[in-house]
């Protein structure tokens, strides 16, 4: 089954994550012979986007991989050479917990089934039992057909589910790179239509543009001026401005506190624009504010873009450019190990083949342990939810970014991205909610406080199995119970009920901070997996560093030609345009042949 590959390359890239793919494209673009491998049958590694079926298979495969230990390959090497086995130990996904909140058949009582894998959190009791249907909900949903497990599985193609959802700043590194390299034409994007924040017990849209600020009814004229003034000083002067001199070792919050801002303005700046916690340094806060403002006004209402069909499309775009310039692609092909001689990596072993190389670019999931100096402690907690409505109902479909700061110590700020059907993340009538934060405990524990706040996930109900007689009241009780208290949050809930979670998945991913040891061969270049940042800048910058280390004097991804600019060898001008005329007139054919003949003549000269 194994296809034989050509055996000599300038660059072998292992893993099709974001950084690896950018490096592969950059090397191929300047004419280097590139081989790009991935042991998976899909592109992207931990950056991948799956349809529903693909995601299920990915989960299955992780289970299978855990049970059968990888066998080390034994390879004959020449004198002076050393063989190091590749390892997948740095790409371990943990605490996968998948839950359905709907039944197989919409007419049957709602069943909560649970598919806990690996070291699950073990809170089976609340969810194991069967739960009766939410008749109340059925009525409310009017003529809309109920979503069932079967229906979601049947429409698996309409889902695009991201392992590492990320946004692009409209003037961030990736957007600039996509445009300057002309790779942008492979992808399509949607602008994030609103940045939301949680204030006074409810979600509100943050005014981003000047027009938004002035149209906003929740801030007074004085506050508007205050906000514009503050933003202008961040924007125009940056963190090195004397304005911030006194705050070099202080936090951004401390700086804001000196500005006599009203609570609303302070909230907008801290939580929506700078996405800062009370520990964020003044410098970081100013820089983030600047980054945000810089990207405004280029595309849409907010500074952010989302790739259609998911973040996993972007590595594939770079891979395509690599292939277009001659890069060889082979999925389902594993790196068995590397052959090292003195301080150089000479070749890799893959599927019984020995492939010689000048440079090896390797994703962190494949690095031989012998050359790793330290493994970072940071990990990512992820939650993915399919819901029945938006967290913040609007007149039109929205693409929403929400930054939710910790409520108390021991929690991490959570980034929430809500995608609607127009991004191709899910079918009409559904929403896809992604939550991401730094890992403290398990993904489920870490995200629980945010899930509780914004979503209605049955698992969080304190009661176990319910019978049909009280299901009606129970269903609405979480909302009604607090009416008397009359706080804004509760009132809002009655008007806009929380989205019902139909399906959820929690997982922990490794974050990227592996360091290679000093003794590692100098021509092995490490690429990290997804990081905790909102955008792709880390990957782009890392790819630039790797490329500069390999080819210090070469251009990084110069602009690729447009189709109209491609001129064939021996062709003086682009060929005659086929103008279609009427079929059957046949003139174009003849014209083509004449052209061919004239070219032959040219060549013979």
């Amino acid at each position, binding site marked *: 089954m194994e296809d034989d590959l050509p055996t000599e390359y300038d660059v072998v890239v292992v893993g099709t994550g974001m950084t690896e793919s950018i490096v592969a494209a950059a090397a191929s673009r300047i004419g280097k012979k590139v081989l790009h491998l991935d042991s998976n049958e899909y592109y992207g590694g931990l950056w991948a986007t799956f349809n529903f079926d693909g995601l299920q298979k990915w989960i299955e495969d992780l289970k299978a991989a855990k049970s059968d230990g990888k066998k080390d390959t034994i390879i004959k090497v020449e004198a002076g050479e050393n063989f190091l086995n590749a390892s997948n130990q740095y790409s371990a996904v943990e605490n996968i917990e998948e839950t359905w909140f709907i039944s197989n058949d919409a007419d049957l009582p709602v069943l909560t089934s649970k598919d806990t894998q690996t070291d699950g959190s073990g809170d089976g009791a609340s969810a194991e039992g069967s739960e009766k249907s939410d008749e109340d909900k059925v009525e409310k949903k009017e003529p809309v057909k109920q979503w069932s497990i079967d229906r979601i599985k049947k429409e698996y193609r309409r889902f695009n589910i991201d392992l590492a959802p990320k946004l692009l700043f409209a003037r961030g590194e990736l957007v600039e790179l996509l445009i300057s390299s002309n790779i942008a034409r492979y992808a399509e994007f949607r602008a994030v239509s609103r940045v939301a924040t949680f204030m006074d017990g409810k979600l509100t849209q943050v005014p981003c543009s000047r027009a938004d600020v002035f149209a906003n009814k929740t801030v007074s004229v004085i506050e508007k001026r205050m906000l514009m003034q503050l933003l202008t000083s961040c924007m125009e002067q940056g963190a090195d401005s004397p304005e911030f001199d006194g705050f070099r070792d202080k936090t951004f919050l401390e700086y804001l506190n000196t500005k006599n801002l009203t609570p609303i303005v302070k909230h907008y700046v801290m939580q929506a624009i700078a996405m800062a916690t009370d520990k964020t340094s003044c410098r970081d806060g100013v820089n983030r504010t600047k980054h945000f403002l810089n990207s405004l006004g280029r595309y849409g209402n907010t500074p952010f873009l989302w790739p259609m069909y998911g973040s996993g499309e972007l590595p594939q775009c770079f891979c395509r450019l690599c292939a277009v310039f001659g890069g060889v692609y082979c999925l389902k092909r594993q790196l068995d190990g590397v052959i090292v001689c003195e301080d150089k990596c000479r070749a890799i072993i893959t599927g019984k083949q020995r492939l010689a190389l000048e440079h090896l670019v390797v994703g962190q999931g494949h690095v031989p342990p012998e050359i790793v100096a330290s493994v970072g402690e940071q990990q990512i907690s992820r939650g993915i939810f399919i819901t029945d409505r938006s967290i913040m109902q609007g007149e039109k479909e929205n693409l929403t970014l929400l930054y939710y700061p910790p409520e108390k110590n021991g929690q991490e700020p959570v980034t929430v991205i809500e995608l609607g059907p127009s991004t191709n993340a899910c079918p009409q009538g559904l929403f896809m909610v992604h939550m991401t934060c730094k890992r403290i405990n398990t993904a489920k524990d870490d995200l629980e406080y945010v899930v509780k706040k914004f979503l209605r996930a049955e698992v969080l109900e304190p009661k176990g199995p319910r019978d049909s007689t009280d299901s009606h009241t129970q269903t609405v009780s979480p909302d009604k119970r607090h009416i008397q208290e009359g706080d804004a949050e509760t009132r809002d809930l009655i008007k806009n009920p929380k989205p019902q979670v139909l399906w959820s998945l929690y997982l922990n991913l490794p974050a990227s901070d592996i360091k290679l040891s000093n003794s590692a061969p100098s021509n092995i270049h490490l690429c990290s997996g997804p990081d905790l940042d909102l955008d792709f800048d880390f990957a782009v910058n890392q790819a630039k560093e790797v490329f500069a280390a390999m080819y210090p004097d070469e251009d990084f991804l110069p602009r690729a030609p447009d189709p109209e600019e491609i001129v064939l060898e021996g062709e003086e001008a682009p060929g005659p345009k086929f103008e279609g005329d009427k*079929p059957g007139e046949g003139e174009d*054919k003849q014209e083509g042949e004449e052209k061919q003949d004239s070219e032959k003549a040219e060549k013979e000269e």
Partner: protein
Amino acid sequence: MRNIRRPIRFRTKDNMANRGTAQRPNGQTQGKICQFKLVLLGESAVGKSSLVLRFVKGQFHEYQESTIGAAFLTQTVCLDDTTVKFEIWDTAGQERYHSLAPMYYRGAQAAIVVYDITNQDTFVRATTWVKELQRQASPNIVIALAGNKADLANKRVVECDEAQAYADENGLLFMETSAKTAMNVNDIFLAIAKKLPKNEQAGNGGSSGQGRRLAEAEGQKATAGNCCK
């Protein structure tokens, strides 16, 4: 298998003013311009790139390097009142080790699945590409089956009737083609152009998924959902 390959060189045209607009040499304006993404599929060496080069450039080379440097090529076809602009994507060799990326099919409104009439395996493989498209691509995609290398009729192993029957069963357009002699090359693209829906929504500015494309020139606000190529 092809072992001698001629590289395609590219150069940048000085005048870029005409980019992105379909033009007729006589300057006549057309009523409607529709842009479609068309993808080519099929086994290595069946002549995918040759078909495109014949169609787009009117050229044929016996030993053709696939498509170095060509992300996709464009060509326009004029129907009665409509100009159809094809954005033609080649596999760039990613099919060789069965590693074609799903982004390749994204938003494609048309596909040509190519096989070599002198090679039975390539026909079998073509049927699996058709299945793959039916599974992965958008449900309304127009698929054409092309039995290429029709000039090599003396080495034929795939019968025309067999392929026609398969195409009929699966609702595909079908033609035997020859990139070498140009037989049916323009015709198959024309047949696809005719079959594509040419309403306002389809092919509106080439933004197939109705998302936004990023471009250099764009600096100011634009309405979401517009293509700004």
